[in-house]
Each structure stands twice: as structure tokens, then as C-alpha cells.
């Protein structure tokens, strides 16, 4: 079966972790890693594994477009629009892992197929990927007036991009809580914890539902959703029993990563990159389907 060729823009924590996950995809072929620092760990690793590397950023990639069908952008919110405009103008699909969010939000267990034909889709944020499925699991049972998430990640897992984009993280996540999660109003908070050994990514999800009740149905819906997320992030678990207090529902999750690049505590990397691979796989499936139809 013909695989779609993948380029990764940005050789930092997210881009490097993504590379290892692409390797395992039956539908995607890791082709090129694009960075701006030839000495970066990500570029060195890509080179050692036999992939093409480009060390002069998007300009370099634009000269080698034959290497890619899909480009994952793991640079920064500030660089993303420029990158995406250049690539989509040449007919390349772009999956955005920055919080720039110029394309529609995709959270696989909620709307994997919805935007698959769009030139650019956005993966929200790590906190969004970890929490929006739960908010959706509640809002599919009972209308949600307000949902708020608090993501706590290990300091070591937050690279310079994440640190410089902290406001974009909160605004993009809040918006996706509404658009994808189905809450009337959303809010997001992110905390960095420097403890040694590093803490595992954890997320609190607090929701105000329109009406009290439906506790059993909500519990069941949450458990089903957890299983669904586990299908691509096996270390995604409920940390405590959901707490119901009047109209308020609080859910706590922990995300253990697959330790592809950073150790398992950095579940925030995994949930982003694993979700992005789901989207790439779906694009590949869709592409093959189209090709088949043309041949027939």
C-alpha cells in the first residue's frame, strides 16, 4: 500500500516525539525533518535514523516539496501562518501542532473525520487533547454551561515554544472547549511544576452542567471516552472518581506517555503527537479511498 510522505517542521520536543510515532504508522512514511539548528537533537536523531534533514527551516523545505504529502508544523504559533500559507499554496496538507489555530480544531475521539478534507487542521493544545474528550463525554449527555480545565505539566516537558506561547495555549484551549467540547463557555489554565522526579501530566476538568442529575449516564459516558482515548494513548487514566457536587462535575486524569522521546512523565507530548498521527492516518485513508474511486 502506498503511504503518504510526512515532513515535520520543528525539531524540538514535539517534532522529535512525533517522528517516532510516524515510524509506527502503517499509512504514513517518515520522510523529512526540518529544523533551523543543524546541531539540534531532533535533527541529529532524524539523520541517524536515515531520514532526510533540512536545517534552514521552511525555506529549505519549499525547495524540496517532492519529499512531502503532509507537513506537521511543530514550530510556534508565531511562525505557523507563514509556514502554512506557503505549503497549502502548493497543495500540501498541513497539520498544525502549534496553538496558532488558523485551521479548524480536531480532537480525534470527538471529530476525527469532520475536517479531514481541509488544507489545514489544528490539534488545539496538549491540555485540549487531554480534556476536551471528557467535556464532550459530559456534553453528549447533558448540556454544559461552562467547562474549565487545569493542565499541570512537568517543567522539563515544556520547551521554549510552549513557554513563549503560554497565552496562546490558554486562549486556543478555551475556544476549543467551546467549539469541540460543546461547552457554552470555556476556560483553560496551565501550570508548570518543576518537581524532581518530574510529575506526570495531570488535568483537572471542572464542568457546570445545565441541570443536576444523570450521574450514572455521565459516569458511563466518561468511562467509555477514557477507553477511546486509551486506544491511541494507553497511559491515559482517570486519577480519581469523578466528583458530583450540585451542577458541578470534576474529573481528574493523568497522562502517562509512551516515552518515545522524553520519558513517560511527558504525557503532554504524547497526547498531542498521538492525536496528530490519528489525523494523519485518517487523511491517508481518505486519500487512498479517493484514489481507488478514481481508478474504478
Amino acid at each position, binding site marked *: 500500500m502506498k503511504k503518504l510522505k510526512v515532513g515535520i517542521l520543528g525539531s524540538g520536543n514535539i517534532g522529535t516525539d512525533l517522528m517516532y510515532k510516524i515510524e509506527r504508522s502503517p499509512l504514513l512514511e517518515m520522510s523529512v525533518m526540518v529544523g533551523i539548528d543543524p546541531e539540534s537533537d531532533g535533527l541529529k536523531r532524524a539523520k541517524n535514523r536515515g531520514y532526510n534533514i533540512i536545517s534552514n527551516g521552511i525555506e529549505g523545505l519549499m525547495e524540496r516539496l517532492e519529499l512531502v504529502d503532509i507537513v506537521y508544523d511543530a514550530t510556534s504559533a508565531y511562525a505557523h501562518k507563514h509556514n502554512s500559507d506557503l505549503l497549502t499554496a502548493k497543495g500540501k496538507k498541513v497539520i498544525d501542532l502549534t496553538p496558532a489555530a488558523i485551521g479548524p480544531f480536531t480532537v480525534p475521539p470527538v471529530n476525527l473525520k469532520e475536517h479531514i478534507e481541509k488544507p489545514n487542521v489544528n490539534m488545539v493544545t496538549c491540555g485540549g487533547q487531554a480534556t476536551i474528550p471528557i467535556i464532550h463525554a459530559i456534553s453528549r449527555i447533558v448540556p454544559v454551561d461552562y467547562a474549565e480545565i487545569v493542565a*499541570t505539566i512537568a517543567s522539563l516537558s515544556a520547551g521554549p515554544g510552549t513557554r513563549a506561547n*503560554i497565552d496562546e495555549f490558554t486562549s486556543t484551549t478555551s475556544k476549543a472547549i467551546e467549539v469541540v467540547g460543546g461547552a457554552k463557555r470555556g*476556560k483553560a*489554565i496551565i*501550570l*508548570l511544576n518543576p*518537581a524532581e522526579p518530574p*510529575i506526570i501530566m*495531570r488535568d483537572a476538568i471542572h464542568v457546570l452542567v445545565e441541570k443536576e442529575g444523570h450521574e450514572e449516564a455521565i459516569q458511563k459516558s466518561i468511562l467509555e471516552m477514557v477507553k477511546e482515548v486509551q486506544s491511541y494513548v494507553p497511559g491515559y487514566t482517570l486519577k*480519581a472518581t469523578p466528583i458530583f457536587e450540585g451542577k458541578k462535575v470534576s474529573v481528574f486524569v493523568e497522562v502517562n506517555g509512551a516515552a518515545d522521546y522524553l520519558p513517560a512523565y511527558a504525557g503532554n507530548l504524547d497526547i498531542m503527537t498521538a492525536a496528530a498521527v490519528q489525523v494523519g492516518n485518517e487523511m491517508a485513508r481518505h486519500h487512498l479511498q479517493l484514489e481507488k474511486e478514481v481508478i474504478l
Partner: protein
Amino acid sequence: MTLNILDVSLRDGSHSVRHSFTEEQVRAAAKGLNAAGVRYFEVSHGDGLGGSSLQYGLSATDELKLIEAAVSECTTSEVAVLLIPGIGTKKDLENASKLGAKMVRVATHVTEADVAAQHIELARNLGLKTAGFLMMSHMASVEKVVEQAKLFESYGAEIVYVTDSAGAMLPNDVTEKIKALKQNLQCEIGFHAHNNLSMAMANTVAAVEAGATYLDGSLRALGAGAGNTQTEVMVAVLEKLGYETGIDLYKLMDLANDVIAPLMQQSQEITSSSLTLGYAGVYSSFLLHAQKAAKQFGVDERDLLMKIGQMKAVGGQEDLIYEVAQNLTR
């Protein structure tokens, strides 16, 4: 020598009254602070701009309304706000600035100053008096505190605070850290205390003697945990030590008696749970949430707080309280 006293009753006190400040209360307090000659006072949700949330407590009145009300009562005093990147955003700061806030303290955990670069830059561009606030300073070494303070200074902070959010520091630790900052930075140095170990006033004196020139306090110690250095006491003590504060002590006492005391929901004495905060090194705003969770799950709040201290929770991680409380019942 003149010292700058910054009163945090209307921000840190927000924790203590469960974020229930009304416009009327804020007006009365602002009027009194202005009349007493307090140069700066802070108004925000306890967790800073944008802090109103289910995690920390929803504000009964929008903090922007409270800021606007406070500003309108000031003739000489200036309103400060707190901003914790990750909770509040640049947009929140712009809104507060438009309403007349003149100072901002941008706060991060003591090891994470680099998330605040953009916010400090924006604050300077807005013409605000700009400070960096190193929360949970007890958790880091002197070297780390200096390194992070230098980052704040490099972004444009005019003051850097050593912030004892857990009320866990002892005077020698305060002296050492403030002295090191004084030696390594050009900007002014501030200190923010919590009284969980009854050290707030002693630590404040240690900070002043080591070179701090910006000092936080709250009236009747209305702040998270056992509260902060009590502003009216601090004014009296500093005067006795020969420092100028420019504050009218009697007017400040009257304000504490007439406006602050009536709105307090509990006394600010050091209870076994606030003592445990300082002992375990837990962020002071965890207190009321831990008391509630302890009751809800039938566990000892001291065990709960000790465990959270061992887990090295940072400010803002109140969600841990419920998880740990559930686990303690197993």
C-alpha cells in the same frame, strides 16, 4: 530611608473571603488606603487576573469592576494588579490597564520566570510600574532565586519580589536570598510574606535589613492561610526601626477596624491547618479548599496538607487536594 508598602488585602484577602468582595467593600477599603497614604494597593482575584474559576473559586463580582471602583477612589494611591501567566493573559492586563491600574506584579513559580517575558514586556509598554514575583521562593536555592530574578530583570522588571507563598521561610533564609538579589541585581527588591509559622513580621524585618525596599502587607492580615504581614503592625514596627513609610498609622488602624474587620469570614489566627501549610511548605490558598475536602472525605486536613507538601505541589494545583483526599480514604 523611605520604604514602599504595598497593601494586598484586596487581592490576597480575596482568598480569605472566598472571592466574595463587593464593589462597596472595595470602595470603602480603597478610600481608606488612599486617605492613609498607602502608595500602592493590589486589587484582583486571589489568583490574579483571570483567576475566577471553579478550581480556585468564582469571583462574586467581576474583578475588573472592583479595579475600576478602586481606581475611582484614588487621588494619590495607585492600584496594582497581580498576573500569573498560565492563569491570566496579556489581554486581561490590557483591560486592567485601561481601567486605570498603574502597577502589575507578574508572578511565576520560583523556577519558571521565563513564561513571563511577554507579559513583563507588555506591562512596560503600557507604562505600568512592573514587578516580577517569584512565588514559593522557599522551594529554591539561593542560586536558583538569583538566576530567575535576573531573568525577570532582563525582561524589564523594575522590582523583583521574593514571595513566601507558603509562609514556610525563616528569617535567615529571607536574609540570605534578599542579600544575594541585592548583590546581583540593579533593580529594587521586594518581599511578600505569609504568617503560617508566625514569621511574617520577623521575615519582613529581615528582608528590610537585607535591602528590600518594597514590602507587602494586608490589613488585619487578611490574606491566604494565616494571612500576610499585618500592614498596620508593619507600619508601626518599621517606624520604630527608624524607617519612613509615609503612612498615617491611626488612619490605617481605623480602616482595619471599620472596614476590614467587619468583612472577615474567619479570624486570621494560626490554626493547626494554617500552621501545617507553613510546616509542609504548601501554597497558602490551599487552606480553605483543604478544609472543605477534609470534611467532605472525612480525612485529617493535616495529613492532607502534609501529603501535598511531599508531592511538591506548586501554586494553583488545588485540584490535587481532592485527589489526595480521596486516596487517603482508601
